[in-house]
């Protein structure tokens, strides 16, 4: 049964996952790179946060460290890609694979680390009225963080350096000819993207899972892409303002999470079916333009064929109809 609770949980999770989606949007849409590093930087953010909080660090500082760790992951992929000219996809895969070992090292050879010390969730609980439901906490924090990130990204991509990032993603050759150090710009973009992904992982670990799991990154890129595409398909018309685009991406993440939450209420689906549902959503969304085009073409051909028969054929053949 799809209940209000299901929808609220979709909203709560969606807002936190949206931070990761914004990161994926930066690489996938602005830099034109499908960056698989995110599969590793998402649990990296969670692992760093969990271990540091348990070690006694203030949760806000721990989140900040997770962001820095994400930057480092992006830096490594960026160096592989720009300095050593390894294709972007492969660079991401290399960092992702390496991060699996790194994450387990960070978590002292464990696959799961429960957050036992007060986390950001606890801080929020202290701020909000007593007995505020967990989902509400996520929603409040999610809205604040998402809006702050949208504001920051909106500002950043309007600056000279931000424009250089967009130009590099659009046409590297042009950017270089205008004096943009495209290598550094790509590295910067990957760092910002992975910082957001790590932040998302850090918050998911604290608000949702209550622990860091080494496997929690599986499928991150596909979830991110699914959310980006859903957001674009539903909300974005051609020349929308950049801030609206970012908000549409957040909405995409929320819708994606809600779809998943609803799908899981069907008794014939298991939690482990989540991945195939995601894969199906992304495949359909990516195939949609091709399908649309093909339908439109067929329609046009059929119309023209009819016109050909009624107008030209009869005239050319002296009125005789040729079957």
């Amino acid at each position, binding site marked *: 049964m799809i209940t209000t609770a299901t929808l609220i949980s979709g909203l709560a999770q969606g807002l936190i996952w949206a931070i990761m989606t914004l990161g994926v949007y930066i690489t996938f849409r602005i830099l034109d790179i499908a960056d698989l590093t995110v599969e590793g930087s998402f649990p990296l953010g969670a692992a760093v946060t969990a271990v540091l909080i348990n070690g006694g660090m203030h949760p806000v500082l721990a989140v900040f460290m997770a962001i820095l760790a994400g930057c480092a992951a992006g830096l490594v992929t960026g160096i592989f890609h720009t300095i050593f000219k390894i294709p972007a996809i492969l660079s991401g895969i290399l960092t992702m694979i390496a991060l699996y070992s790194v994450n387990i090292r960070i978590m002292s050879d464990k696959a799961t680390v429960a957050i036992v010390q007060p986390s950001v969730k606890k801080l929020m609980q202290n701020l909000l009225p007593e007995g505020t439901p967990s989902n509400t906490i996520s929603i409040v924090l999610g809205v604040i963080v998402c809006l702050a990130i949208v504001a920051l990204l909106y500002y*950043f991509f*309007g*600056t*000279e*350096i*931000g*424009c*250089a990032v*967009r*130009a590099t*993603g*659009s*046409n590297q*050759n*042009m*950017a*270089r*000819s*205008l*004096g*943009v*150090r*495209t290598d550094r710009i790509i590295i910067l973009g990957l760092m910002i993207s992975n910082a957001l992904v790590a932040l998302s992982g850090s918050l998911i670990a604290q608000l949702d899972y209550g622990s860091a799991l080494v496997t929690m990154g599986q499928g991150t890129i596909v979830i991110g892409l699914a959310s980006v595409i859903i957001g674009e398909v539903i909300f974005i018309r051609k*020349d929308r303002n950049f801030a609206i685009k970012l908000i549409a991406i957040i909405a995409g993440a929320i819708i994606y999470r809600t779809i998943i939450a609803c799908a899981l209420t069907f008794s014939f689906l298991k939690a482990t079916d989540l991945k195939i549902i995601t894969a199906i959503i992304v495949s359909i969304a990516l195939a949609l333009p091709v399908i649309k085009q093909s339908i439109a073409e067929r329609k046009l051909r059929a119309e023209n064929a009819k016109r050909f028969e009624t107008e030209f054929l009869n005239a050319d053949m002296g009125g005789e109809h040729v079957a």
Partner: protein
Amino acid sequence: MLIWEVSTLLNMMHIEKSFNIGTINEKKVLNDLSLTINDGDFITVIGGNGAGKSTMLNTIAGVYKVDGGRILLDGQDITYKSETDRAQYIGRVFQDPMMGTAPTMMIEENLAMAYRRTKKRGLGWGISAKEREIYRQALAQLGLGLEDRMSTKVGLLSGGQRQAVTLLMATLQKPKLLLLDEHTAALDPATSAKVLELSDKIIKENNLTALMVTHNMQNAIDYGNRLVMMNGGRIILDISGEEKKRLTIEDLLKKFESVSGGKFTTDSVLLG
């Protein structure tokens, strides 16, 4: 210590460039190439396919690093400076109209990128209201009505319009040297003529020093104050002043045959 005349802008000395070095496909493209460009020169460059014209421009721009020789720009050794470092002195327009502009960005954003070619980019706004007025006026000079479409994505423009915008972008901040690499070759004849006229006008009005590669001999004769012909990776002919004005296509072909000892191979050179 090297000494040269003050009026010399670019000095290419004994440039060597090969591709696929160390492989079976190794090919020497520039072979002891030397060229001196004076301040205010508008040089047209002709030559058959594989003569090294584009490679010469790309070594000046820093896209390729040379294997030997020296390149001096305004007295400064730029032989091993990066493409991005050289961008502050050099404006470029490419053969492919898609190469010089960012299609997903607006016309004004593209111009704003070009406006900052000579500057270090920071966290200030990428475009200001004051600049927009400069761009509007610059676009109006093109006579294409683009000044009223400044927030149109460049990807929606035609090849000719994009090439005109690229030309404007290359000269928005006056470059020491403008490199035009067959920049009208991909356009239809009418548009090609228009963009060529525009290039000439911009070069003259701003007193630019320019190097223009073309496959059209008549254009090479009609435009600029100097004409160089390339073959086998070096300059085989360098004509300027009155002598250039009197040139005909037949003269060029004859000269080519006498200097190179062969025939011009490509029809496109003749037919343009």
